[in-house]
């Protein structure tokens, strides 16, 4: 496949969140045709017959099923942002609807847009100022880097292994066929279709299962990336278990029980959390535990939300300070756990500790003590910097404002949990807690790639059933191999030739 253009691309162009309106945008030569397939308006007239730059009220349907009530805006090229035929679907916000619409567009022939692709097309079609070339280039590379990272990071280990296993089998069988074709006097491939068909059926089953996993959102970790942080034995695992309603993490009284990172998907009041329990953060000599601690720090760095659990029956110390630094600039909630025991830590203690450990208040972590007024600006960065230190430049006086929610809970007695739920809901609906959009896009890209691989393998099966000669099989086998490689980020390169030479003995 590699690099493509002249195709029709689609993407969600608003942040995937609970926002009131979502926009799904589609651009390319078939944009109107695809829109015709999934749009039902009031009158019989199809969208492709409507005038440019008009807005239409109707419904998005997938076959018999109505997905949402929408407004559709039509723009014919070249008078559109990309310079191509463009359709914008304004739908009800909400993760599910926006995602479903995008998936439907893809089912009907659109392709998930590559990072920066809308902007690139706009540029190539002369819709952007030439002086912007460099900026467009930067955008493409930056978004691509991000997409690659999230694509690779978010793919679950078991899914990756499964895909690699299928790929390995596909390339082996393809190499066998190709070796035989290349050296027919040494190796015979006659009747190989029968054996291959069994394998193809098996791979189809494997990919079908992965596709189902995709629909469950389990192939990659969708949801708000939530990390539970805290000192050893602060009750992080207990909290997770309460939220999950099951004993998932091992809970003991021994400090440092959770040595790695546990991960769970939960739904709190309709909000999807992808929650990670981490090893307690403390200076440690234990190597296994140390790896866990380092990993916890990495996760905290990438998190959308941090739940910081403090054992209120023990005084704050250096390790808490470490965590205070980690949550600086992040959306977080502080939980004073063990409210069943006598409290040694108060909200004021937490607040004081926070500002002591983050002297810049909301500046970049530890880099500078000079407060940059702009980075503290709540307006420009609403989702972050909940611990606010505002500085008036002229008068050099400090106005401290601590905005991180602090909640008393008892994981043991399940107290305060509803308060936590309410707080999260509030953060979410106020727009202070957002998804990482790229996760959804990545999932859809993966799904498209899996479907492509599935289709290619179906063609192999058809070729076998139709009694086609063996050389036809390898064409579609390699298509499947390539499509699966798009998920794991691997290209074909010289794979086939290398497999032929390493696994099979050639003559001469």
């Amino acid at each position, binding site marked *: 496949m590699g690099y493509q253009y*002249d195709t029709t691309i689609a993407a969600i162009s608003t942040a995937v969140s609970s926002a009131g309106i979502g926009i799904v945008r589609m651009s390319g030569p078939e944009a109107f045709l695809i829109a015709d397939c999934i749009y039902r308006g009031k009158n019989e007239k199809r969208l492709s017959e409507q005038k440019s730059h008009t807005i239409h009220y109707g419904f998005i349907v997938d076959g018999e099923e109505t997905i949402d009530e929408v407004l559709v805006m039509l723009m014919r090229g070249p008078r559109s942002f990309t310079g191509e035929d463009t359709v914008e679907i304004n739908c009800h916000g909400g993760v599910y609807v926006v995602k479903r619409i995008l998936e439907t567009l893809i089912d009907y022939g659109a392709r998930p847009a*590559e990072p*920066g692709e809308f902007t690139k097309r706009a540029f190539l079609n002369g819709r952007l100022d030439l002086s912007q070339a460099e900026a*467009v280039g930067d955008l493409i590379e930056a978004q691509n880097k991000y997409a690659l990272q999230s694509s690779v990071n978010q793919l679950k280990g078991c899914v990756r292994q499964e895909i690699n296993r299928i790929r390995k089998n596909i390339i082996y069988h393809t190499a066998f066929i190709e070796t035989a074709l*290349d050296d027919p006097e040494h190796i015979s491939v006659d009747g190989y279709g029968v054996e291959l068909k069994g394998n193809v059926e098996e791979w189809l089953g494997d990919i079908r299962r992965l596709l189902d996993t995709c629909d469950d959102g389990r192939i990659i970790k969708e949801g708000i990336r939530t990390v539970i942080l805290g000192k050893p034995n602060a009750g992080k695992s207990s909290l997770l278990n309460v939220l999950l309603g099951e004993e998932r993490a091992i809970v003991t009284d021994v400090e440092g029980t959770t040595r790695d990172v546990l991960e769970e998907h939960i739904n709190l009041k309709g909000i999807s959390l992808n929650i990670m329990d981490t090893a307690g953060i403390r200076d440690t000599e234990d190597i296994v535990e140390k790896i866990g601690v380092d990993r916890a720090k990495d996760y905290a760095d990438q998190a959308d939300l941090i739940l910081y659990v403090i054992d209120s029956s023990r005084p704050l110390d250096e390790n808490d300070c470490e965590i205070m630094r980690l949550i600086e600039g992040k959306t977080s909630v502080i939980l004073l756990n063990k409210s069943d025991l006598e409290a040694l830590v108060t909200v004021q203690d937490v607040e004081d500790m926070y500002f002591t450990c983050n002297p810049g208040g909301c500046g970049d972590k530890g880099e500078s003590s000079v407060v940059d007024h702009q980075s503290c600006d709540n307006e420009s960065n609403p989702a972050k910097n909940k611990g606010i230190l505002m500085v008036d430049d002229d008068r050099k006086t400090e106005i401290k404002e601590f905005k991180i929610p602090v909640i008393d809970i008892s994981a043991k007695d399940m107290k305060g949990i509803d308060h936590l739920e309410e707080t999260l809901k509030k953060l979410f609906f106020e727009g202070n807690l957002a998804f990482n959009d790229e996760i959804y896009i990545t999932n859809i890209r993966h799904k498209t790639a899996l479907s492509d691989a599935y289709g290619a393998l179906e063609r192999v099966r058809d070729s076998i059933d139709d009694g086609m*000669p063996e050389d036809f099989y390898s064409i579609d086998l390699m298509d499947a191999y390539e499509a699966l490689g798009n998920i794991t980020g691997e290209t074909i390169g010289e794979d086939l*030739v290398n497999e032929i030479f390493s696994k099979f003995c*050639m003559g*001469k």
Partner: protein
Amino acid sequence: MKFSANSVWVNKDKYDIVVIGAGHAGCEAALAAARLGFTTIVFTVSVDSIALMPCNPNIGGSSKGHLVREVDALGGEMGKVIDRTFIQSKMLNKSKGPAVHSLRAQADKANYSRTMRQVLEGQENLEIKQAEVVNILTEDGRVTGVQTFSGAIYNCRAVILCTGTYLKARCIYGEVSNNTGPNGLQAANYLTDSLRELGIRMYRFKTGTPARIDRNTVDFSKMEEQLGDERIVPFSFTTDPDEVQIDQVSCWLTYTNEKTHEIIRNNLDRSPLFSGMIEGTGPRYCPSIEDKVVKFSDKNRHQVFIEPEGIETNEMYIGGMSSSLPEDVQYAMYRTVPGLENVRIVRNAYAIEYDCIDARQLKPSLEFREIEGLFSGGQFNGSSGYEEAAAQGLIAGINAARKLQGKEAVILDRSEAYIGVLIDDLVTKESHEPYRMMTSRAEYRLLLRQDNADQRLTRIGYEIGLISEERCRKLEKKEELICSEIERLKHTNVGTTKQVQSLLESCKSTPLVSGASLAELVRRPELSYRLLESIDEKRPEFPADLRDEVIEQVDISIKYDGYISRQKKQVEQFKKLEAKKIPEDMDYDQVKSLRIEALQKLKEYRPVSIGQASRISGVSPADISVLLVYLSSSSH
């Protein structure tokens, strides 16, 4: 250090193009250059070794047969010469799809070589000269001539390097090492230094060949006879099939066994490969028997093909058992093979090491990027095989001539020809072993068939000037017949008559439930155009010389229509990227936001198009997007 002659003499005769080497690449290069009207001289270290086949006695084979067909369709010579000198012929993979059908012929080596030499000798504008070229002369980055070992200078406007395996060649077996080219011929020991001085990066590659044995000492009763095809298909589109139906000779099949393998294993320490005496990189597709035994230790036998080297010689080639083991081990191991118990070896097996180039220094036209007028082809470019060499030689010859004509270079792309795949791979991909053509390297192989090489390339050959108008007209006639016959079949319906149903039944094909077009019937795997003759009343009569070819094309076009149209669509995408050219003087440092790896690779390879850039490993689709954006902004 560059060679310095004792005396210098400037030859005042005028030459346009100098070809260095008269192997399979050199012959095609020299013929193409001379036929396009340029005064050409071809140098060889031995006039007796023109078009020598120092390894296997075959032309063609899987994917290589395709190359020969393509060379022929463009106006090259290899196909014509093998049609006149073959002694056995086979179409390989006949039970498979048409894309992998491949012709392979056993050549009478001496006759092939002699016949090609006669073609060269009879060619107007072409001169043959026995001399070793030691220096390439340049001025301001442009080729001006060459100098031979005797000190003589030949001025010219373009040079084509086709030195094969001769540069600093060394033949090795066991503890024996000899600084000669193949077959004990003189090596070319000085040219490498001259090339290095011009800034050309060199590689050292290795290959090998099995022993030649005396036919009188072989017991054929212990081997399986391998016959040629009953109906022989010629290589050249210009050869009349009726004229190649000759009496063929046989090849013989036998096997190695545990005893053979044991001898090999016990003597591995005496192999120059294992002792480190050989430093060159050998090809994985052509392993020596010792490599096979080590690498595939679970196999208890390997096939061995005993093939004649010609009609007027007793020498036979032991296909599948190339080796660089010591002489005594060679005797011992060959004699364990059934039928070879008393075999006498005429020429020992050996490995050969030679200098070649990193072909990424070439443009797709096969001209060196940094030295104007200097072209190269064949094994010198890091390929292997007679056919790969001929294909590159032809293209280098054509493009050297076109350079002097002031015309744009001929560059076949990956969707047009195996030649395009071959050259694109050579100049775009890093390689650590001699490159061999394979059908799996061609992503559009359903379109690049050996049967349609003429339809793909003969018009291009005509435009270049190597194909006659008559031949081009004949092709047009053929295409017309194919086209109208396909249309007729699509629009001729047959009903559920008794005649139709009984024909289908006799071919084990499902009877019709309602009417169907003849094209629909041809599409069934168990049926074909020829089988339907009895129910196709209005079938036209084709001219005798085109009949077989037309029927073959009609069958293929209808049967594989779905697959073929799919590949054609992919080719459309591919062509768009190939058409986006990158200027030769492109300054990649100006392209901000390319990743560092991509930047380095692009600067190193200097691709000619966005398509070629996208095939360089380390250049991502995002980098390609960035490049496209940059190119479109700078073109305004």
